[in-house]
């Protein structure tokens, strides 16, 4: 990603340089120590947020990674005489490795989301603490770092620690900003909103989560390393304390976990309140007051302080508000295939004896079906006949139990859904499942970027095109909750199209639309096909199926009972019995 210089970055750079020069002034060193604590919590909260805020995987294991860093630095510096500054990257690596290892096991299991992830991470905290406490790493007596030498900056160790803290905070905010702005950030936000959809839209969810976890835990580890020299004596009890677990969460939510700067903001406020004011003899009362303030803020500003700040900022300085103008349209070049071509080319998608069982229930009982390039295939059948399961198998969301699915000569068996998406298979959902916290434009751009594999700017321009195409251009900067059902269906369609699929699976896009809207949609679908995209669509509305399909496939009870032109299949007695009951067939 190329980064262009902007006034904001200039200001940030200036602020960092100014902060770095603070120790050179004759400011009382207390303020350096206090600022160090703020930097420390900025690093902790912001790093927590990279996984937990962006992707919604709440980790209560930040203390485990922090503690790993603390003890890595302490052990290397005291027992092996490693120069202290060299221990910090090692601390980061060890913590990041631990995070990745946990992620590698946990992220494979789809059920370990939400509170189960929170629980497994808090358990890791206890496990790491107990191991350190009962082995020679600590053994229970604590580790003294009093005689560990540390180079002096601005004439004192204080200066060094301050600069290390500043460096950590800057690095962490920079990382958070970079992730936020990158494709990975977009992917993490999508994971937060709907992980399954994200994967199907082409987001490599497993890889992103591991990367975010590694970054998050690595930074916590490095922050722990610096912390060990700051306190100069580390014990298990104080390292793995409940505040270390809770404060990053509190600070991130308080500041706003959706924004890269939110946790840092929260860290500054909470640290100042707790450590700056609550130090007097009436500490317990002041602490209670701070907590009360927290409640009020959370109740009144559920998304944290940052979004409100941004709002005020925009009111005060209207010139700096992002302009909500649709990017210039990028018209995709149509693929030169037509319905005629379909007759001679080999099948694009081949399902061979596809079987899928859930528990003991066989949802698909050996489906064999070819889909030809450029055709529109209607997929019909009563409820529970296996249509949606088949779509989920073709998109890689479900792994099949037997049989094979081949797309353009490539077997998609065992392939993660995001790679299937990149091959050129896209889908829409019957009940729209947009990413609720991304704008309409963001939703479509994500599909273009991940499914279509184009760059960020290009993705936005393509998204603009498809939004215009589906008539949603005016809503580009709205959020999905602001759309009506009809618009949400078209958003599903736009997301599917933006991935530039070679085959598009549409799951009941027409249900709930009125007649005019249906005609509009049918027109769109024909046009899509004419631009070279093969379509499989699931539909109950027979009028649409007959009008649109080149061929119809009928499923019943997980088995394919008929394939052919609409006229042929509608005359098939088995189909008639399924649809109209046994009486008519006999």
């Amino acid at each position: 990603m190329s980064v262009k210089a902007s006034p904001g970055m200039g200001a940030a750079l200036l602020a960092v340089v100014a902060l770095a020069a603070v120790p050179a002034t004759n400011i009382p060193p207390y303020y350096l120590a206090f600022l160090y604590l703020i930097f420390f919590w900025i690093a902790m909260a912001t790093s927590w947020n990279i996984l937990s805020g962006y992707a919604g995987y709440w980790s209560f294991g930040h203390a485990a990674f922090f503690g790993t860093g603390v003890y890595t630095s302490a052990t290397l510096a005291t027992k092996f005489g490693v120069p202290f500054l060299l221990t910090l990257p090692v601390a980061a690596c060890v913590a990041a490795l631990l995070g990745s290892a946990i992620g590698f096991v946990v992220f494979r299991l789809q059920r370990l989301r939400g509170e189960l992830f929170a629980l497994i991470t808090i358990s890791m905290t206890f496990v790491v603490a107990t191991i350190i406490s009962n082995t020679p790493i600590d053994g229970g007596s604590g580790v003294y770092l009093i005689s560990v030498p540390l180079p002096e900056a601005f004439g004192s160790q204080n200066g060094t620690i301050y600069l290390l803290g500043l460096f950590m905070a800057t690095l962490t905010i920079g990382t958070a900003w970079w992730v936020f702005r990158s494709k990975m950030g977009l992917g993490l936000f999508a994971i937060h909103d709907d992980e399954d959809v994200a994967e199907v839209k082409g987001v490599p969810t497993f890889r992103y989560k591991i990367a975010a976890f590694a970054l998050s835990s690595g930074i916590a580890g490095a922050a722990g390393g610096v912390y060990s020299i700051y306190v100069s004596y580390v014990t298990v009890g104080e390292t793995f304390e409940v505040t270390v677990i809770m404060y990053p969460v509190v600070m991130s939510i308080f500041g706003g976990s959706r924004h890269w700067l939110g946790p840092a903001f929260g860290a500054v406020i909470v640290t100042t309140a707790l450590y700056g004011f609550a130090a007097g003899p009436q500490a317990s009362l002041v602490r209670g007051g701070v907590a009360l303030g927290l409640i009020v803020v959370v109740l009144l500003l559920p998304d944290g302080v940052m979004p409100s700040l941004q709002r005020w900022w925009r009111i005060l300085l209207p010139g700096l508000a992002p302009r909500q103008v649709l990017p210039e349209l990028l018209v995709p070049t149509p693929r030169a295939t037509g319905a005629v071509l379909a007759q001679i080319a080999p099948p694009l998608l081949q399902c061979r004896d596809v079987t899928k069982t859930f528990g003991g229930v066989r949802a698909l009982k050996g489906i064999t079906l070819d889909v030809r390039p450029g055709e529109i295939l209607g997929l019909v059948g009563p409820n529970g006949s296996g249509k949606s399961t088949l779509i989920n198998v073709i998109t890689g969301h479900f792994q099949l139990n037997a049989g094979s699915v081949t797309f353009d000569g490539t077997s998609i068996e065992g392939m993660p859904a995001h790679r299937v998406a990149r091959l050129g298979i896209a889908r829409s959902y019957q009940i729209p499942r947009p990413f609720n916290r991304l704008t309409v434009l963001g939703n479509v751009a994500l599909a273009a970027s991940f499914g279509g594999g184009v760059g960020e700017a290009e993705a936005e321009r393509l998204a603009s095109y498809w939004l215009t195409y589906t008539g949603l251009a005016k809503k580009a900067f709205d959020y999905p909750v602001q759309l009506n059902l009809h618009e949400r269906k078209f958003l599903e369609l736009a997301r599917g199209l933006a991935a530039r699929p070679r085959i598009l699976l549409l799951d009941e896009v027409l249900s709930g639309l009125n007649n005019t809207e249906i005609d509009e949609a049918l027109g769109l679908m024909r046009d899509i096909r004419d631009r070279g995209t093969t379509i499989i669509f699931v539909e109950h509305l027979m009028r649409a199926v007959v009008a649109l399909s080149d061929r119809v496939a009928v499923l019943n009870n997980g088995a394919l009972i008929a394939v052919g032109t609409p006229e042929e299949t509608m005359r098939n007695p088995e189909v008639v019995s399924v649809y109209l009951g046994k009486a008519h067939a006999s």
Partner: protein
Amino acid sequence: MPTKNCAWLRPIFFACLSLVVALPAAAQQQPPIRIGQTLSLTGPFAQTGLAHQIASEIFVERLNKSGGLLGRQVEYVVLDDQSKPDISRTLYEKLVTADKVDLILGPYGTAAILAAMTVAQRYHKVFVENTLGQPGLATYEWHFSATIGGADSTSTLPGKVLDAFNSTPHPPQNVLIVSSKFPSAQDMAHGMQRAADARNLKVLGFLEYEAGTRDYGTIAARIKDANPDFMFVACLGVEGSQILEALNKIGYKPTRHFYLYPSGLMAADPLADHATSYSGFEDVAPYTSTKEGGEFAAEYNARALKAGLPYPHVDSQAGNEYSGWQILVAGVKATNSLDDGKIAAWLDKNSVETIEGKRDFSGRSHTSASDTQQLKQAQNGKWVAIWPPEARTPGASLIAP
């Protein structure tokens, strides 16, 4: 206490002015001498922090009533370190560089003390602490320990305990060591293991438990199973009472038992009858026999009662804090100066009379030359001094089977 009331406003004041580098000094004729420390007023060590705070306040008030220091009044600045060493360190920076107190005293607790000592070292402040677990490990040359265990109390105290029990008609033949996973307790437990090995006393087991253990039932079951002659419990606070309670529930009463840092409350517990512990200052003779000791104890008890403490009696924690103040103030008075270097130089060479006895700092790292800790035993709901024999509470002696 007007000084106390404005002390908590100060942080707010300073935070508001945090961008102003130079603060205009208030013009006063005879500004008070300000002595600062942090204590764990909140958080897990808040119980002990409170005892230290009361002792400090009593000392400062008595000092001011008797004319103050160098003809000036003394203002006590106490900040809450929330039982966290990082905050302790930060607040010592604040005391020294922002609040610019004249002198500092160490905080409570090993971790906080070590974190604070780095600050003292950086600004060359004389640093008197009174609760460092292993004071012999301190490396700062102006560190002075008000603890009375000497540099190697982890070796000397266990020996002393075994000596005391060996003086009874039936010396123990074996020992079970139970230890909290708290650094200073852990160190002492290992000391006991060494002492037992050296004397060929059979060690039946070495049980370690986490500081936050919620249920001592199984630990009690193991103790009962081992049925030791002597149970050495390196515990903190109420852990000892909790173990006794759990033992009682399974119908076991230890015959000889020692607890390292029990809360004062233990003496009042009928289950703890004949429990022993180390002691430096207690609410009995001989500690209260001196004028200052007696007055301090009476005043402490009154305030503790008023504060609603469950065991309103002075103990070693308060006594240690008080003698820490005595040591620092003795240095100021003798050198007639607030110069940290002069005070340190004087303390290095001289001895100070405290309520815990005459103290010098000739041991390693300016600890006391020898371990002068005594042993106490819970008898009829009160602690009494029972060891060494020459410093017993009148009429008391070590009761053991």
